[in-house]
């Protein structure tokens, strides 16, 4: 008996579709059925079964003629931050409730052109601001994973928590995420899947609801490194509609997999050894170093001296950009409106009702650090520190080809555990934020389980536009870790 169709990897499904051993419609039905039994996870905010059926029929026709794109017939889920034409796109916010975009984001348009089948839109932290998915207006996502002997609900990480949960629970073969400070990699680590944040500029940001424009980047979330390589190729590309989407050739990322890492120099940044990091995270990191050494890589100690300032600098730059980007939600052109007799009162009432607590917090911080008299001390200083962070990486690339670090300082925590302490929540992104500040590609690969049976991830960071090395090293880690654990499907009893 072969595995259930929704438990295949994207690459396996692609090969079976190509060989006509399975139809896109069968594959799609298997996923829609799995979604129906997974309502308890709250991973999806919109399910698009009719669209999925239509897409699958089209894919079967193309495949029958021996045609088809990179993702032909592959059922995927889309983070609700991506605008999808005629399909509700809310960014997890009340203020965009009912918004039906009249256009399609470039990344999703690329995926449909390559034949992907759309299953629905996934839940997320409001406007991608959060590390736990608890700031969503549509309720928290529950992590498919539970600790051993403990049936309390855990967060899936965030902000791409719905996408992560959907991939981990085999509700889709891959999902899009976006990563501003770790929003692909941290949930990937918390749910035992692969998450890749490409280089800033690799994927177009056009049609993705903006959070912090100089940091936001879309990327794939999948169950294997190979799947991420396949999906990135379909998502990436130059776009005249986003001036920061770079016009450089898109390699065949899959071809990088399986290349030996013999002689490759892997940097271990000393500053990521932070006091108070749990022993099991440090041990996993050491194990990762040993795996790469065994595969022939040269391990080099490096220093990234400004690492500890990346997170505080991020919490100036990101809220500053967000406060500016979110000014557009004014109750006039789309979304929620709370009517008042006076225009300014209408703006204020609409925004007070439409934004949640964390979004308001960041809008206020951003407004404050950009306000007269404080700009130099906060924003300008943060952008200078950002230059120093990018210089640290540039210096490291003289000595090494990629860096290996843990993805997160801990495993998935309980729902509600950190909601009262914003700074404690922010610290979850301590290992992921530096790559965003410097625009670099980084992957999280599931590498082991905690003492309580929860997944842990290792992160590989590479040079700008060198996703190939990141994938190549990630693939070696994946094979060495042989992470084949899956969460027990408790959610099926609750739907």
């Amino acid at each position, binding site marked *: 008996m072969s595995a259930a169709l929704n438990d295949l990897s994207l690459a396996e499904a692609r090969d079976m579709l190509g060989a006509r051993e399975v139809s896109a419609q069968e594959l799609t039905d298997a996923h829609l059925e799995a979604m129906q039994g997974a309502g308890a996870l709250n991973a999806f905010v919109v399910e698009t079964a009719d669209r999925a059926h239509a897409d699958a029929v089209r894919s079967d026709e193309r495949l029958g003629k021996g045609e088809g794109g990179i993702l032909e017939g592959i059922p995927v889920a889309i983070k609700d931050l991506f605008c999808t034409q005629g399909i509700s796109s809310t960014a997890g916010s009340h203020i965009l409730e009912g918004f039906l975009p009249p256009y399609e984001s470039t990344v999703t348009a690329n995926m449909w052109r390559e034949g992907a089948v759309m299953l629905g839109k996934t839940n997320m932290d409001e406007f991608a601001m959060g590390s736990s998915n608890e700031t969503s207006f549509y309720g928290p996502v529950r992590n498919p994973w539970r600790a051993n002997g403990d049936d309390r609900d855990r967060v899936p990480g965030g902000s791409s928590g719905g996408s992560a949960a959907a991939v981990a629970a085999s509700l889709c073969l891959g999902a899009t995420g976006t990563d501003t400070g770790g929003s692909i990699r941290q949930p990937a680590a918390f749910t035992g899947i692969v998450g890749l944040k490409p280089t800033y500029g690799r994927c177009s940001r056009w049609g993705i609801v903006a959070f912090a424009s100089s940091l936001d980047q879309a990327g794939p979330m999948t169950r294997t490194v190979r799947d991420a390589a396949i999906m990135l190729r379909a998502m990436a590309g130059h776009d005249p509609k986003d001036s920061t989407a*770079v016009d450089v050739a898109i390699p065949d990322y899959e071809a990088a997999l399986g290349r030996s890492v013999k002689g490759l120099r892997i940097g271990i940044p000393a500053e990521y050894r932070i006091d108070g990091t749990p022993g099991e995270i440090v041990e996993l990191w050491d194990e990762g170093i040993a795996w790469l050494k065994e595969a022939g890589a040269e391990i080099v100690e490096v220093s990234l001296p400004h690492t500890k300032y990346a997170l505080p600098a991020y*919490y100036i730059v990101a809220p500053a950009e967000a406060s500016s980007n979110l000014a557009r939600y004014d109750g006039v052109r789309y979304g929620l409106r709370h009517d008042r007799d006076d225009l300014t009162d209408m703006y204020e009432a609409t925004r*007070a009702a439409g934004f949640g607590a964390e979004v308001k917090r960041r809008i206020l911080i951003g407004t404050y650090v950009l306000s007269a008299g404080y700009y130099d001390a906060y924003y300008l200083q943060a952008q200078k520190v950002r230059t120093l962070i990018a210089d640290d990486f540039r210096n490291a690339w003289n000595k090494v080809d990629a860096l290996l670090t843990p993805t997160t300082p801990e495993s998935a925590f309980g729902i509600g555990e950190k909601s009262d302490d914003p700074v404690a929540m922010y610290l979850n992104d301590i290992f992921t934020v530096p790559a965003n500040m410097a625009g670099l590609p980084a992957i999280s690969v599931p590498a082991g389980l905690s003492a309580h049976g929860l997944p842990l991830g290792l992160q590989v960071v590479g040079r700008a536009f060198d996703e190939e090395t990141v994938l190549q090293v990630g693939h070696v880690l994946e094979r060495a870790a042989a992470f084949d654990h899956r969460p027990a499907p408790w959610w099926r009893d609750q739907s």
Partner: protein
Amino acid sequence: MSLDKATVARIARLARVSLPEKDLAPLAEELSGILTWIEQLGEVNTDGVAPMTSVVGHALHHREDQVTDGNCRNDVLANAPESTDGYFVVPKVVE
């Protein structure tokens, strides 16, 4: 840096978010906590360091100066909470 209630009320006004009086004190405390944590950036010597303006540093593309979009008024208005005769409608601003 510690923010007082008046400062929170002022930035909320700048950001066009109305806040009930009872939220001002707890928000002032929360935001002060975040800003105090952020202020460790002050200890970094940035003399002579240029602020980052472009993260990847590539040159921007030029394109032909041509109209590539338009004639989609109904699409633009389709999501408006209120519109009339092809216009967005807002509360009266001129007496």
